[in-house]
């Protein structure tokens, strides 16, 4: 019983991380129709830049070292995302495949440069003790606090995204842009700038995920491909461009991974893909995707 509860809780905390990362992917895809194959790369950039800021502060035993790393990671990813859109992608708007190819090229180069600059040693962030210890959870017992924090952050991200999309002018622009980019421009909205803003926002979410993820799991090369794939699968399962769908997709994938690991460890990874193919067969647009 308590083992089952722990595994479900593990699945949900993992889902929280996946949601944070994939929501950025989904957002960018939803408005820009860009399959950002460099999404995992943004995760890496956030992790490594954040770590560069975090490390000396942590050595100096500053309590806000982690928060500084978090902020640096988010900013780095947002800037990288905005640059990607501004410099490379904006002038080939509408050429979806070409954009996907460009992001593939960028991801190859950046991953290699990250290796050149930071080396291949795995790293990991350490959150302040307040959120890094262990907390008693009913039915589960002692449970890593940070994993609970992850859920909290994911919920906060979900609510914040909902508020941004539904209660702000930017959100109206984003939703209108998903419906009809041309008409949005004809309404006097600077669509290229909204595009850069969306890219920055999506990348910032990925950056948030990057630092959170690199606190829960090691930060190393290879995580870029992993989180790109997870984002793909989550978004395919949940539905392209739907935030609620992304949440559902993340929960399914996270639970599948953890339950799979407990029950048939060898094939835990496969379960995820089985779910994906099943969804594709029954509902190609994803669970909450628009046809």
């Amino acid at each position, binding site marked *: 019983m308590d083992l089952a509860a722990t595994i479900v809780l593990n699945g949900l905390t993992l889902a929280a991380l996946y949601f944070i990362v994939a929501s950025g992917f989904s957002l960018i895809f939803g408005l820009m129709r860009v399959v950002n194959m460099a999404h995992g790369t943004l995760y890496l950039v956030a992790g490594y830049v954040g770590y560069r800021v975090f490390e000396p502060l942590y050595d100096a035993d500053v309590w806000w070292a982690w928060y500084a790393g978090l902020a640096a990671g988010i900013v780095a990813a947002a800037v990288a995302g905005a640059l990607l859109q501004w410099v490379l992608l904006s002038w080939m708007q509408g050429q979806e*495949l070409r954009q996907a190819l460009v992001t*593939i090229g960028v991801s190859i180069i950046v991953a*290699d440069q990250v290796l050149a600059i930071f080396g291949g040693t795995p790293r990991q962030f350490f959150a302040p003790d307040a959120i890094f210890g262990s907390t008693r959870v009913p039915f589960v017992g002692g449970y890593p606090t940070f994993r609970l924090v992850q859920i909290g952050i994911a919920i906060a991200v979900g609510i914040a995204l909902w508020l941004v999309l539904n209660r702000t002018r930017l959100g109206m622009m984003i939703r209108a842009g998903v419906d009809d980019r041309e008409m949005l421009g004809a309404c006097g909205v600077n669509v290229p700038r909204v595009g850069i803003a969306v890219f920055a926002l999506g990348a910032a979410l990925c950056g948030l995920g990057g630092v959170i993820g690199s606190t829960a799991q090691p930060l190393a090369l290879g995580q870029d491909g992993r989180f790109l794939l997870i984002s793909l699968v989550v978004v395919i399962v949940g539905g392209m461009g739907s935030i609620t769908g992304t949440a559902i997709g993340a929960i399914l994938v996270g639970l599948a991974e953890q339950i799979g690991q407990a029950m048939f460890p060898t094939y835990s*990874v496969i379960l995820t893909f089985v779910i994906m193919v099943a969804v594709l067969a029954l509902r190609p647009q994803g669970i909450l995707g628009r046809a």
Partner: protein
Amino acid sequence: MRSAAFRAIGALLLVAAPFLLLVVLPQNQALFWTANVLGRAIVFGIIALSLSFLATYGGFISLAQMMVAGSAGYAVAILVDGAVPTIVGGVPYALAMPIALVVATLMGLLVGAVAVRTRDIYLLMITLAVAMGVFRFVETNIAWFNGYEGIRNVVGPQLFGTDFRNPYVFYYVSLVVAALLYGGVLYLVRTPFGLVLQGIRDNDRRVAALGYSVKLHRIAAFGVAGFIAGAGGVLATIYNIGISPGTIGLGPTVNVLIMSVIGGLGHPAGAFIGSLIFTVFDTFAANIYDRDRFNTLIGLVFLVIVLVSPDGMVGLGTRLRSLLGARRAPQP
């Protein structure tokens, strides 16, 4: 007329390449170029051809082609005699290789069926996800695929009393296979199936309205591409003396796309041009730049090609030719 002559010269060059290399290079380097640059480029060109076929004539950018090629490679490795570890074993190459082609064709059909309702970037995403799912399965399954280590010692058959991996035998077998498949693609695209496939590329709704089943043709196209990729996969597996999950991982999967794009997705020849460029870079990156930073180098080449000439080297060539032609035109 001129282009026909060009083509004939090109074919002749390819056939004579091993001899020509001996003229300009020391023998061991000529052998190396024959097998490990040209031969390897042809083998990976075949795999890239399967993608170029789908992309050029169907408009499908599939990232599953390396995985499909790998399925054929694994089929051979699992079946043949002498592979380590022995999983099924005992099957001669003459039988294992056709079975492998069937496996790859079926795998292609399966990918086609899974992705049949998606297009464009959705298709790209879904084929990538399917390919990575198979990759992870192969990597974790010991019973059939020997997991992370893969299957070794797939040395290939004896051909004309000679070892298959003899550079010349390998080169000419690959060349003949590539030529057959290339010719087959050019033949196929003028058949009703090929024309309908191009119709689907241009306008799938209209194809349906004319009485064709779009799904059937799409899935069949993936089957054909699977067959092509399978041929490449079998050759690649023998070339590599075995196969491991790394062969069908994210890197190689993207590499096939890179080859096709560098060469140009507008024409099946682009696959081979792209794979040759890629192979040369891959082999001599250490001399050109710095071995360690090979990925930066190839990434930059890829990015520049995508930015400058979306239709790759083939497109660049066409554009240059029309530019030259335009300049030459006023003279007579």
